[in-house]
């Protein structure tokens, strides 16, 4: 068969029709990945606007344009939006789009489950933001310590929105994590042994295992909170034998692995693009891969460092302090590998590389002040001050947002098919970088000067005024920087130069597809012979007999776990409404729980059954002529 006919046939098999029906039923990982990216960016903008409102309130002492309750709701919504609905989903978006392309598969292992993770992610976010309509948003910070969050001290719906929206999101994230694991375990192109796997696959894999084992702690915590708030159970109140510390243990057992969940895939993306722009393979590939995995493992042993100030035995504090310092070793291995790669290579300073370097600088600052905070006496001194706010923003903005922007400048040409404007990009980087440091570095000093976090205003004359004003100015500059990049995206969609298949001369498989990739991605399923498929002299799609076209339906190759030897053909499902229906059932369920109406809860739970039944029922296959 000639190649045009083959391609036409593959398009017919894999394409989702551009109709409303297609829009709601698509299971294409590229479409879902794009939706994830756009939705998470919208959450970033919303969360950013909330941050700016807070900075306006705090710019000067004794400001009164937000009431204390409004301030509490805004800072809590800011934290939840950024941590749960931006930082992790944006990385899921990249992984969703890229992982199948990186490993030479035509879709994720469970495409319908993948659609479900998107629908439930976006509806759980809308569920949370429905609280704004009631003017009863969560108000107790993202870690929501009882007894403050008990119904006695937090009446109203706010904390119920918190618990239920997180439970909803947890389902989405867990399903997504399982999907990533099975995809990477099972769908790698023949020859892509684990010793040749792209580092983004390593970090996504580690992140997914962390999610599978840590999210149940959040589930238990939120269920217990709801049971205590509305059904008279006693978990966190001392009067009935409960313990407020139980919440802290459960929450941070989830919470610290979560820090790595929003951090590791970002390092994976950096490990992909620094070698490309340094024009050489990464230095110490096995060490980077290993330290990624070890970060995930040791990440389960450091949660108590969030609780040093609650009063514990010396033994356990020393253990967790040591573990917290240990984990920095693995990050350091990665940092040194990146620096060595740049050092030994011939770096090309694209916008993407600027953001990667900005990331390195902020990660080192945030990482070092993290190590300092792991020293217990210092922790006692700075707990609940702006020092901690500064540290967590250096780590989260520095180690999540900068890599995300680096990744956008690197991969958007693949996703949209058009290049971004480099000059505007570099301007955007400098504005963001200056704004970021101006916004968050003074917070270190405010923390040392004793300014507590989460206060809605403060009296003058404590040495916080100037620093606060500087921080506010910095936050607005950071906002302008982000705006410049958004303008850049819009500009590039209209008039960016066409990217072609591999504008950066990169090494990984996604760059062998068209930009944007065809629905089937690869005409011939690639086979891999080295760690850098596009830099070696082996043609991955070399297949003169059309043996690896697989055009008898939606098919891709399933391979063995370690050596990626082809073992079977993976059959992929057709487009389906089932994921959306299941999400709707869950919305009914959680709305009922919010309204404390057991009948609606029951209806939602019962609606899950036909949705799942419809989903799993053996389908008749569409025959493509």
């Amino acid at each position, binding site marked *: 068969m000639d190649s045009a006919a083959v391609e036409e046939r593959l398009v017919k098999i894999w394409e989702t029709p551009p109709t409303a029906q297609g829009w709601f039923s698509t299971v294409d990982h590229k479409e879902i990945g794009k939706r994830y990216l756009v939705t998470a960016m919208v959450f970033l903008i919303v969360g950013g606007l909330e941050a700016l409102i807070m900075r306006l309130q705090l710019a000067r002492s004794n400001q009164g344009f937000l009431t204390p309750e409004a301030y509490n709701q805004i800072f809590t919504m800011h934290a939840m939006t950024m941590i749960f609905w931006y930082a992790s989903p944006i990385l899921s978006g990249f992984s969703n789009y890229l992982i199948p392309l990186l490993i030479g598969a035509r879709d994720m*292992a469970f495409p319908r*489950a993948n659609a479900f993770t998107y629908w439930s992610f976006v509806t759980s976010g809308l569920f949370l933001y429905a609280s704004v309509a009631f003017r009863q948003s969560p108000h107790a910070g993202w870690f929501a310590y009882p007894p403050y969050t008990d119904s006695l001290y937090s009446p109203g719906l706010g904390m119920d929105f918190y618990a239920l929206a997180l439970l909803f999101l947890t389902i989405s994230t*867990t399903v997504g*994590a*399982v*999907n990533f*694991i*099975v995809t990477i375990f*099972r769908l790698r192109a*023949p020859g892509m042994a684990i010793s040749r796997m792209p580092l983004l696959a390593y970090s996504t894999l580690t992140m997914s295992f962390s999610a599978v*084992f840590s999210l*149940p*702690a959040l*589930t*238990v915590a939120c269920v*217990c909170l709801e*049971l*205590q708030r509305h*059904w*008279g*159970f*006693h*978990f966190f109140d001392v009067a*009935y*034998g*409960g*313990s407020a*510390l*139980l919440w802290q*243990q*459960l929450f941070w*057992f989830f919470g610290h692995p979560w820090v790595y969940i929003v951090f590791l895939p970002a390092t994976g993306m950096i490990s992909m693009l620094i070698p490309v722009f340094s024009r050489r393979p990464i230095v110490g590939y096995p060490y980077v891969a290993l330290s990624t995995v070890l970060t995930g493992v040791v990440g389960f042993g450091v949660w108590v460092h969030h609780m040093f100030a609650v009063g514990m035995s010396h033994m356990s504090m020393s253990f967790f302090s040591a573990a917290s310092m240990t984990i920095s070793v693995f990050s350091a291995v990665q940092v040194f590998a990146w620096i060595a790669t740049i050092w030994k290579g011939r770096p090309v300073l694209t916008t993407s590389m600027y953001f990667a370097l900005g990331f390195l600088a902020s990660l080192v600052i945030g990482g070092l002040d993290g190590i300092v905070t792991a020293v217990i006496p210092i922790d006692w001194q700075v707990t609940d001050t702006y020092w901690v706010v500064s540290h967590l923003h250096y780590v989260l903005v520095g180690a999540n947002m900068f890599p995300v922007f680096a990744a956008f400048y690197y991969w958007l040409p693949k996703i949209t098919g058009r290049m971004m404007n480099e000059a505007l990009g570099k301007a955007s980087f400098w504005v963001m970088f200056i704004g970021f440091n101006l916004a968050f570095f003074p917070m270190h000093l405010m923390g040392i000067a004793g300014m507590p976090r989460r206060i809605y205003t403060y009296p003058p004359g404590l040495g916080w005024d100037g620093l606060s004003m500087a921080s506010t100015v910095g936050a607005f500059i950071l906002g302008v920087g982000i705006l410049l990049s958004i303008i850049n995206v819009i500009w590039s969609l209209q008039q960016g130069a066409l990217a072609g298949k591999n504008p950066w001369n990169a090494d990984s498989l996604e760059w062998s597809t068209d930009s944007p990739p065809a629905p089937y991605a690869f005409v011939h399923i690639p*086979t891999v*012979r*080295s760690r*850098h498929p596009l*830099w*070696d*002299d*082996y043609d991955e799609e*070399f*297949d003169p007999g059309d*043996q*690896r076209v697989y055009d008898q339906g939606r098919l891709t*190759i*399933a391979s063995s776990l370690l050596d990626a*030897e082809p*073992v*079977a*053909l*993976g*059959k992929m*499902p057709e487009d389906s409404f089932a994921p959306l229906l299941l999400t709707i059932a869950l919305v009914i369920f959680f709305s009922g729980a919010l309204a404390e109406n057991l009948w609606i809860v029951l209806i939602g739970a019962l609606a899950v*059954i036909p949705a799942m*039944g419809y989903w*799993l*029922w*053996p*389908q008749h*296959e569409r025959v493509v002529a």
Partner: protein
Amino acid sequence: MSTIHAGQAPVEVLLQPLGIDQARGRQGMLLLIATEASLFVVLFFAYFFLSNGDWRWLQQEPPKITYALVMLAVLLSSSAVLRWGEKQVEAGRFAQGRSAMGLTVLLGLGFLVLSAFEYREHLKHLAPQTNSYGSIFYTITSFHVLHVIGGLLMLSYVLLLPRIGRTDRPPHRAYSDAASYWHFVDIVWIFIVGILYVLPNLR
């Protein structure tokens, strides 16, 4: 940058025809079980945390153990029956496999009836609202009951499927996947009996 030499020959194995992949669903089910297992680990952690690390709650009447042991027997026999059913399905005897699964569903329903009785007995002197012990006790056991219901729904669904043997049309291996989930639910009950019922009764 010099080119990396990787050889030109394609991977030869591909010339052999490949069957339809049956393993992804299996891996997904095992990961679901892993995350559910950590859910119960966390619940047991909460139990020990609230008891101040003791395996016996001081000033707390230990629960009566009879019902729990009968329920354990019911669940273990249901797992044995289902295991037998899995072997039948592997050997191609689908009718026997289906009957085994039907019997498992009945035993599971028996478990639910028994747990209703056990709750009625238990609630006479301990309510979830009584204290933290009641709260965590009923939370753990009712989480388990919900998992039993989920498992029963899975098993009944498999019974409805037109084919339970090896098939090229998804869901593949529905029988053994649902069975694995059911075995997991049973194993959780072993831990619940051990931790919530037996240990507090040891003096």
